[in-house]
């Protein structure tokens, strides 16, 4: 019963154009429930509609790069945990990857597998948390977030019993991994991974078809592929716009080419696609993990030539990058042959993914801005470093 389908469009627009009041400039953040930390957006509103949005950074700028340039390569490893504090395993790995590239170290097979296992577990943690936070921004009373954290706790338990810490694993080393998981650990992890799709199914039953979710996210915050590429956006946000670019496939990082998995792609580049990318990637991660547990080889986990202390790569530079859950996480290192890196730079996916935030939010309402920000998945430790 489409009442007057033809009518809408220009006349209606013209009517509404008359209705501009004063513009209201509101600062959202740094203390705001939905800016995922101490991010700040200065939003100019016309009614509820956003006509301008300026992000303000630096409220969590804790000088990671400067500190790293003043300490040894090894000492920076625990700092990378705190970079993207939801995914310490992948930041560890990305850093180890860059250092290994710099020094030309080899990594034993088992360690390569373990790295992939940890990275994919981290992806599960990150994506489930992100989805939970996204729903918080959408106005649920924490329920999806708490379900997500319930699953996260299980994975964190694994991390903790392996590496000693829930969040700050400090697990990778240059040339391998720190601890070798016991068979019991592997069994527990494998069982958890096998159970994970059940959680995903329940989650999707609960939310994916929800009409309010569809209405709130579909068509909101569209991002065109060409713009996304030009703005350097990576990770699920980019793939939601339909660009096939996953470093696990493109670079073939580590042993990823040995695994069978697919890269989901969105078509609309809107918030819903970004949400679904996460869900689908989690399902693919589960597949990778299942393969990894089946084929995990025995062997050492550290390159025997690697040394812990007194590590001095020869002069040169290297850029190592990894498909972290948030996008391309890169480390750019310049060594001058001393124990400390001369230049230590993190290429933060979260920061660069925010480049087009304003363009994505313009014309939407303040409620959408919050959701769009949530769907980009930032973590302030990485944005501001």
């Amino acid at each position, binding site marked *: *019963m*489409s*009442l007057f389908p033809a009518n809408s469009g220009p006349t209606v627009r013209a009517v509404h154009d008359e209705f501009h009041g004063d513009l*209201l400039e*509101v600062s959202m953040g740094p203390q*705001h*429930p*939905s800016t995922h930390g101490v991010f700040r957006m200065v939003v100019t*509103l016309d*009614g*509820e509609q956003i006509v301008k949005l300026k992000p303000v950074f630096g409220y969590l700028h804790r000088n990671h790069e400067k500190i790293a340039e003043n300490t040894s390569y090894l000492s920076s490893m625990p700092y990378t945990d705190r970079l993207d504090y939801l995914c310490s395993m992948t930041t560890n790995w990305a850093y180890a990857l860059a250092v290994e590239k710099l020094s030309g170290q080899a990594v034993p097979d088992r360690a390569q597998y373990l790295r992939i296992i940890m990275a994919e577990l981290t992806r599960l943690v990150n994506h489930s948390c992100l989805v939970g936070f996204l*729903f*918080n*921004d*959408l*106005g*649920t*009373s*924490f*329920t999806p977030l*708490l*379900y997500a954290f*319930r699953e996260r706790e299980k994975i964190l338990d694994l991390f903790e019993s392996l590496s000693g810490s829930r969040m700050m694993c400090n697990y990778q080393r240059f040339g391998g991994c720190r601890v070798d998981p016991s068979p019991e650990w592997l069994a527990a992890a494998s069982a958890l991974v096998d159970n994970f799709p059940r959680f995903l199914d329940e989650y999707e039953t*609960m939310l*994916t*078809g*929800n*009409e*309010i*979710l*569809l*209405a*709130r996210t*579909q*068509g909101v915050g569209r991002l065109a592929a060409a713009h996304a590429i030009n703005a350097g956006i990576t990770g699920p946000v980019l793939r939601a716009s339909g660009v*096939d670019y*996953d470093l696990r*496939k493109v670079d073939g990082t580590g042993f990823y080419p040995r695994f069978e998995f*697919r*890269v*989901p*792609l*969105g*078509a*609309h580049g809107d918030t*819903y*696609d970004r949400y*679904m990318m996460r869900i*689908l990637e989690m399902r693919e991660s589960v597949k990778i993990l299942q393969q990894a547990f089946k084929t995990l080889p025995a062997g050492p986990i550290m390159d025997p030539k690697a040394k812990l202390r007194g590590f001095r790569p020869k002069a040169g530079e290297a850029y190592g990058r990894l498909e972290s859950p948030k996008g391309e996480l890169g480390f750019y290192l310049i060594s001058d042959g001393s124990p400390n890196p001369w230049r230590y730079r993190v290429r933060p996916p979260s920061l660069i993914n925010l480049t087009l935030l304003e363009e994505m939010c313009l014309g939407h*309402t*303040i*409620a*959408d801005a*919050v959701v769009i920000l949530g769907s980009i998945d930032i973590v302030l430790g990485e944005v501001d470093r």
Partner: protein
Amino acid sequence: MSVVATDSFLERAPLLFRDWIVGHFPVALQWLVHHLLTITAILTVFGLFFAFTTIAERKLLARLQNRLGPNRSGLPWFRTLKLWGLTQPFADAIKAITKEDIVPAVADQVLHFLAPVVIVAFSLLGFAVLPFGRYLIPVELDAAILYFFAAGTATELAIFMAGWGSRNKYSLLAAMRALAQLISYELPLILSVVPVVLVTGTLSTRDIALAQGGWTWGVLPHWHVFTPWGFAGFLIFLVAALAESNRSPFDLPEAESELIAGHLTEYSGFKYALFFMAEYFGLTALSGLGITVFLGGWQAPCAFLEFIPSWLWFMGKLAGMIVFFIWIRGTLLRLRIDQLTRLAWQFLVPLALLNLGNAAFWALTSGWTGPLALARWAISAAIVIVPFFLLGRRLTAGYAPRTYRYAA
């Protein structure tokens, strides 16, 4: 309030108790005492009900989220006694009442002060006409339903006063949202009740509750919700009631993730608690109306359960409604303001108007029996369902779950 002798003692116990107390006063004052006692009873019962609603909400929400919820508050002097955390609201009350009160320097001091008072006062007023039991109705009005809605209108003003008076950007945005939301949903709320008025031919809550007495075969109560038009009306009523009391998924004015605490951003101490209280009072009163109008009021669901006093039935249904609202809150996400108003004007209002016609049809065909009764049911159901589908399709046009492709 006439007392019929055939009823059980329990049914009349509150009245007898009140009359017994009233009897101790001089005749000239008896009317006053009579009224005051009623009012005190309402305030006490619903004050406590509010307190336990908050703890119930926190605990049930917690259970919904696989956790325990508040369970350690206990009592001040017996620290080992935890009492399952049931004393939590009183701890909150003590905290709130001793908390410093901050009024922003630039705020409109008068409005900022008046808003919580007004909102509590007017959210209480609705209780005056709710029939809590067969004989427990604070005041019988001929136009009780109209009174109920009229009493609720001032809450909109209070929210506006709070938002505007705070002179905070978030509060202001919230105030405008609140106004738009409340005026949009007031209409479907009233319109959803009109069919019942039409069928029962009265605006008196007592008569409406009475009209739902009786059972088919002793188990199927004649509640309005069990008719097609009544069911549709009840659904509209539920949605509109949620929106009118600013509950999730319609909690836009105090949308935490967007507007901090909305119009409450600048309220601290007990004034904040008053708003909180008003929200629950409003919700409870609306639930009470919903029960009266659609869920048979104080009527028992089956004939053999009638021995339970009617006011217990009412309170039980009230608790059930509250639990339902908590459940909703624990599950759903928030609408956006444009979707919110669209839902009201382009879905609920037309449906409610159609439902009015449906009820008229129902009232006109009350004589149909036998197979005709079935036809009556079918037609009435069709009048509800077909527009529901069509309007719903229109509302969700363009939104659908998607399938995704994978990179080669």
